[in-house]
């Protein structure tokens, strides 16, 4: 079965309500001792057989982190996190990283199959031959194969289509592997977009990151397939700290997808990832996320604390980075995918849907730093609040004195379902350049009674009607997703809002 259909069907089969990704895999795990100190940092580095410079880099980050205060400016409330009461390393026991998919623990393969993430290349390959040469060709045909890096707790367990990608000179692997095999690239770019001292959660990540994906697209290469990382938290009381680094060399193009789920647990688990993107001259990166971490139950018990730093450096002239995110999961989301528009004529885009239902809280948005001339940015944010959910858009548009001709357009729309939830918009605009143009539009609306009635008169249940109207509300963002993901995201939106009406 092609990857696409398999994924869609799995989503359909789980779409009858509740969080259906909440199962736990029973597999032998290896943990570092609980708690966080220099020894744990050394332990992780040793486990990964890292070179000295990386250990030093981690230790420096740890020292910085220890002096930092947890930020409290976001509009989210949660009890103090005890950083000593968690595991910082958890990995399925396996000899070495499997050379081929045949060597991967069948329990793990089963887990991903259950999640609808196909790790079987052969099954998908049938669809590869017919796919077009460029990503856009293939996307139109709707049969784009997806290369997947599967991260299970702290380690990458499998990466598909590596050989095929290598033929194009593309590197797609776990970041721990890149450290071994491409140390010069990692050393050059790691921390170059999000430095160790950037913020509390980023510093923590620098000290203890365990795995994540690494992508390098060589000059002039258009990546022939979607690259995707699927993150799965499985182990109890374990933080997940992944680190992703994507470098698009001059004139290259890549589309990257990220998905994530976690078991249902009463406890809160911390996820503090860092994603760094670098786009050189004329390069373009499209980064899409469907974030579906366990959101906690209806009373707000359990769920993932998602504190993530994502940033892109548009270093090259005419480079472009486009962030698209669909945030449906997590108890708390704290996330501001940003673009540093250094190169002249570079472009940054941010398309976001964030849903908060029940007791979920999201404080999310973007930062666009216009540094180069004629840099352009577009921000489209759709926030949906239901139940007791709290949804904040927080965005910064900063235009430097030399960014002549810079432009930004921001549109923030909020949709409220019920009267116990909240939507907040906090835009910051700092413009130091007279010739720059900044536009901001914001709306807040409710689903109108006549819209619901119209749908129900046509036979839709109230929940289906809400799902349909919400999907319509999010259309401008959903259409930015690769087609396969768009279908999944639509279903996810509806599932996430279950129980929000009636």
């Amino acid at each position, binding site marked *: 079965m092609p990857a696409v259909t398999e994924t869609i069907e799995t989503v359909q089969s789980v779409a009858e309500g509740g969080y259906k990704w909440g199962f736990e895999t029973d597999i032998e795990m290896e943990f570092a001792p609980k708690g966080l100190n220099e020894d744990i940092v050394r332990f992780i580095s040793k486990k990964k057989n890292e070179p000295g410079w990386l250990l030093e880099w981690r230790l420096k980050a740890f020292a910085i982190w220890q002096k930092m205060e947890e930020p409290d400016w976001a509009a989210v409330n949660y009890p103090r996190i005890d950083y000593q009461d968690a595991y910082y390393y958890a990995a399925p026991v396996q000899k070495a990283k499997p050379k081929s998919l045949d060597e991967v623990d069948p329990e793990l393969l089963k887990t991903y199959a259950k999640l609808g993430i196909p790790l079987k290349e052969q099954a998908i390959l049938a669809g590869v031959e017919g796919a077009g040469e460029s990503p856009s060709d293939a996307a139109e045909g709707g049969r784009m194969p997806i290369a997947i890096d599967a991260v299970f707790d702290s380690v990458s367990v499998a990466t598909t289509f590596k050989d095929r990608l290598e033929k194009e000179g593309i590197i797609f692997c776990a970041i721990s592997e890149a450290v071994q095999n491409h140390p010069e690239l990692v050393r050059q770019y790691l921390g170059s977009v999000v430095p160790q001292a950037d913020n509390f959660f980023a510093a923590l990540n620098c000290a203890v990151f365990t795995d994540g994906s690494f992508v390098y697209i060589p000059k002039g290469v258009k990546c022939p397939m979607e690259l995707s990382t699927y993150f799965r938290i499985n182990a109890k009381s374990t933080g997940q700290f992944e680190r992703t680094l994507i470098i698009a060399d001059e004139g290259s193009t890549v589309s990257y997808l990220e998905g994530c789920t976690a078991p249902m647990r009463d406890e809160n688990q911390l996820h503090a990832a860092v994603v760094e993107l670098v786009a050189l001259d004329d390069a373009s990166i499209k980064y899409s996320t469907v974030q579906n971490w366990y959101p906690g139950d209806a009373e707000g018990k359990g769920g993932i604390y998602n504190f993530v730093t994502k940033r892109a450096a548009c270093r090259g002239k005419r480079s472009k980075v486009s962030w698209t995110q669909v945030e449906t999961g997590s108890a708390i989301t704290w996330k501001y995918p940003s673009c540093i528009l250094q190169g002249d004529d570079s472009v940054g885009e941010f398309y976001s849907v964030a849903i908060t239902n029940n007791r979920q809280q999201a404080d999310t948005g973007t930062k666009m730093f216009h540094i180069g001339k004629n840099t352009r940015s577009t921000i489209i944010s759709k926030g949906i609040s239901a139940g007791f959910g709290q949804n904040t858009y927080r965005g910064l548009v900063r235009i430097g004195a030399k960014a002549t001709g810079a432009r930004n357009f921001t549109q923030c729309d909020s949709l409220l379902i019920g009267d116990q939830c909240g939507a907040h918009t906090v835009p910051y605009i700092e413009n130091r350049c007279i010739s720059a143009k900044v536009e901001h539009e914001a709306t807040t609306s409710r689903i109108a009674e006549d*819209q619901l009635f*119209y*749908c*129900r*008169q*046509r*036979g839709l249940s109230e929940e289906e009607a809400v799902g349909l109207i919400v999907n319509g*509300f999010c259309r401008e963002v959903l259409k930015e997703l690769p087609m396969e993901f768009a279908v999944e995201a639509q279903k996810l939106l509806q599932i996430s809002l279950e129980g929000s009406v009636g």
Partner: protein
Amino acid sequence: MLKIEGLTAEIDGKQILKGLDLEVPAGEVHAIMGPNGAGKSTLSYVLSGREGYEITGGSVTFHGKDLLAMEPEERAASGLFLAFQYPVELPGVGNATFLRTALNAIRRQRGEPELDAMQFLKLARSRMKELSMPEDMLKRGVNVGFSGGEKKRNEVLQMALLNPSLAILDETDSGLDIDALKIVSEGVNALRGPGFSALVITHYQRLLNYIVPDRVHVLVNGRIAKSGGKELALELEAHGYAEVAA
């Protein structure tokens, strides 16, 4: 098939329907005429289950079941269709998506298999052709940016696809040009048969030349003031409500 007895209903404490009796046997098309504000749209909303209307008395049976006890979507699945006087816009929701979701929701409630995208498109295209609707109307947002006449035609398209046993057409003729009026009427007439009844609410006798009714009722001040054959519509046109329904 539809039997309304002594129906009284109010909105925001204001009584609109004041003891309304009406019976529509299977296979018949009845027209309802009446002055502005008489309660025609209110009747259509009460029958289809819109929130905000308080039923203070009377009963409605539909296919032998208590219609007023059903949720709006259950009424739809039982075969009741309302073509809205003011069709509602659903921004961002593609018309094709909406129509297919609706059709499949109803088919599911009836225990019929759902149609996949291809089957649906084939069906929708053929119905649209019959109604002379351009195909791009499938891609556009539901009623968004549609002209008045296009919205009404879109209502009739939905009716044709959902294949109801009782269609309430609330001023579907208003805003239609002559050609569209004929096309829409043909759309309604095509459904006529022993399993299809309709309540056609209109201000204009002209429509009834195309959709010839079995009965005509005059609704004044929340009640049926007079009923008759199709000639009653002509009488109303000639003499006005005040005289005919007095």
